[in-house]
């Protein structure tokens, strides 16, 4: 009964659950990396470190330069975080796909390995 119940679950709701678990992991990943917020603010200055322009042309140019640097820093940090998120996304997708494929084969694989070792 134990084995029957185990295999019934394994090839039933257990296998279906792998897909759901992968979806949840991907959603959690997007949340944890704040992907939506980072995309919206990709070119925003880093932590609002900005210089307010003065009246003269010189001051305006200097402020423009400072703020450009801040935006570059912001872009760089966000870009690399988004890149890390994208890589993690691909890795998780790969793991999820592999799980889906390996899952139904696992019992057979286990039995095959036991037999191979004994022979």
């Amino acid at each position, binding site marked *: 009964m134990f084995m029957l*119940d185990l295999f019934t679950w394994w090839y039933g709701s*257990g296998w279906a659950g792998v897909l759901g678990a992968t979806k949840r992991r991907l959603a959690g990943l997007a949340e944890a990396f704040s992907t939506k917020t980072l995309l919206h*603010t990709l070119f925003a200055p880093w932590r609002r470190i900005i210089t307010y322009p003065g009246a003269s042309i010189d001051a305006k140019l200097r402020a423009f330069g400072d703020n450009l640097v801040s935006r570059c820093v912001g872009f760089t940090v966000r870009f690399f975080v988004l890149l890390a998120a994208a890589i993690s996304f691909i890795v998780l997708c790969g793991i999820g796909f592999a799980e889906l494929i390996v899952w139904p084969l696992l019992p057979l694989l286990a039995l095959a390995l*036991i037999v191979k*070792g004994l022979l």
Partner: protein
Amino acid sequence: METLDFTNPRARHARLGKSIGQSGYFIMLCVAIAGLVGGGALALVHVHYGYSLIGVGLLALMPAIWWRYELSNVPPTDNTFMGRLSYDGLRLFKPGQPYSPATLWGAISRDPQALFFTNHLLLHPNDLEKCFSADSTALQPVLDTATHIADGYGSRTIEISHITAALLQTSPVVTELLTHMKLTPADVQAVSDWCQRLFEAVHAKPQNFGGIGRDWASGFTPRLNQFGHNISEAIERHGAHFGALVDSPGVHDMKMAFSQGAGALALIGPDGIGKTSHAFALAQNVLAEAQDPALQHKQIIELDATAIISAARQPGQLEFILTSLLNEAAHAGNIILFMDDAQLFFHGGPGSFDATQILLPAVQGRAVPIVFAMTPHDYQTLRANNMALAGLLTPVMLRERPESEVLEIVADSASQFEGRHHLLITYAAIKTAYTLSGRYETDTAYPGKAIRLLEQSLTHANNHVVVPESVEAAIEQTRGVKAGTAAPVEAADLLQLEDRIHQRMINQKRAVEVVANALRRARAGVSNPKRPIGSFLFLGPTGVGKTELAKAIAATYFGSEANMIRLDMSEYQQEGDVSRILSDGQHETKSLILSVRQQPFSVVLLDEIEKAHPNILNLLLQMLDEGMLTDTGGRTVSFKDCIVIATSNAGADSIRAHIERGEELEQFESSFVDELINGGQFRPELINRFDEVVLFRPLKPDELAQVVRLMLAEVNKTLASQNIAVELTDAAISRIVEAGNDPRLGARPMRRALQRAVENTVAGKILRQEAKPGDHITLDATDLSI
């Protein structure tokens, strides 16, 4: 009709999951890891058995995964009772046994969720077992009710708590038992709601509030971190416990106001209503679900006025700090400032400073959203003193929540007290805290006052259990009030109230009986709790014991004659005298309101009531009707703990005439009151407001003799310090009565006569050294110098 089949796969899996348990899971996991790692290592060095070990490891991994994702929680499958019964429920029941309400209770009664009910309702699980039917056909209504309760909570699973609530609600015997304990089925429902809220809080999944990059587009806030408290961050770190408050009308109004472009809000509510909690609830709401750009990802920071003031050591530094904080918040772009006790920022004085000139431009320019929390009184003061700033604030009024919601909030606070102090707070104690704080804490609002009273009750816990008596003990200690229903010893005192009063009052049996009955009714809780404990109009000639009875009541009921507030109403004959009654202390330093506020548990004696101005009598109507008056500052003062006694000599001659005709008081009481109303001496609405109109009869000579004996006892108390006792012969007493008796003045001249007769005589003997310590002096009529 549904049968409880505990042989189905879900129930089987639940039992299997229970028997494997957490330890079984770890063993399987260890075997799996050992097999995979060990087998892999052996396979690498070409040992053939290594493959078998990997296979064994994989085989061990499969049941471990099964336990982790299925057996340890057994998710619901369908909409039947058995398909929805929770994992905890499934694993408790044994298969192959017919179930009835009684056996159902037997199976779940030791589960923590069932114990939550029995503990908080003070029901003993074994006693309850006898309350449930052993008939299996009676089970279906229980299952239906449990399903209905789970549906009501939006719960996919049917938990033990739902079954417990259903069992308690469907058993007529339990209802009877609850009634005996002064509880109702509604209380079972309330405990069920409480249990559900706790269950949801414990099983809540950790929330993600925006991820690592959420605040990267906002500025740094080093100074705000120094002088403020980031409420949003605290909620993120430690979780949130604001329950229904998160979606309350107050939070909704604040969100709406900011969404519609408000720059600053005045969060207005009386002390105790939960202004700070509303700010926390707003922070939680914004973190969890705000989609509006005006609120999304906003952090609420509470400014600490004390920290700001204590950091400013030089003139102008205070202004500099506050300005820099406002600038920093504005620059950061994701800050809502919260100023609790906002009056600290509006008035100069100890512990506060006037920052209106700094705040005004910030609010005008909408540089940073600000929430100012203040009481209605502070808001009015701000409007009066600085209309420019007050006019810029969008007012959000917090109103007291309905009783059911207040009780929920108090119960949730009780859970925190229980965890912190390792004790149990019964639901009856929570209800008592609600009732008594409403009655005795009129200066603050719900839920704060009920929570504070409950916290004070913790020190009165009996065997780590807080019961209604603990709450009563707390209010009795803090307010000096007899809040509980009469305890056995006190009940005896109350039953002998007449005897105790008669120890110091001669005759007036009818008056004493009427008053004692009214006080017993009040103490036993059968009179209207929204009015004073008792209200009496004492009518009768001078010197017959009206004031003495008032003093006796103060001494007997409140423990001391000092618990009497006495007003001579002949001093309140002008219209302007109303302010002397209602003064809040700003202009008049003495008033009835101030006296009652200082000493709420008192006899309020209004002498010669008929002489007061009609406007003052109108106030008296309100006092007797609603049990409260409002002072000139707008604060209410409760008279619900007072005994109000008004005295009058009106109709004294008529009483004397009736008595002289040989009539008893009971015979002419009613017609006498009619006479007073018809004669225009009292308005009928005033007479009707009193619980009792009490008539006093003139004293007879033999009663006056008893008065003399009582007064002599007082003289002997004074002489006790010199160890001298005085005794009067009957002839001496008759002589004093004869000298002091004046039908118009009653017993009043008797004290003077006694002073002249006894005290002067004894004083002479002491000075002439005819009396010395240890002497017992007996005075006859001839010894008295009258």
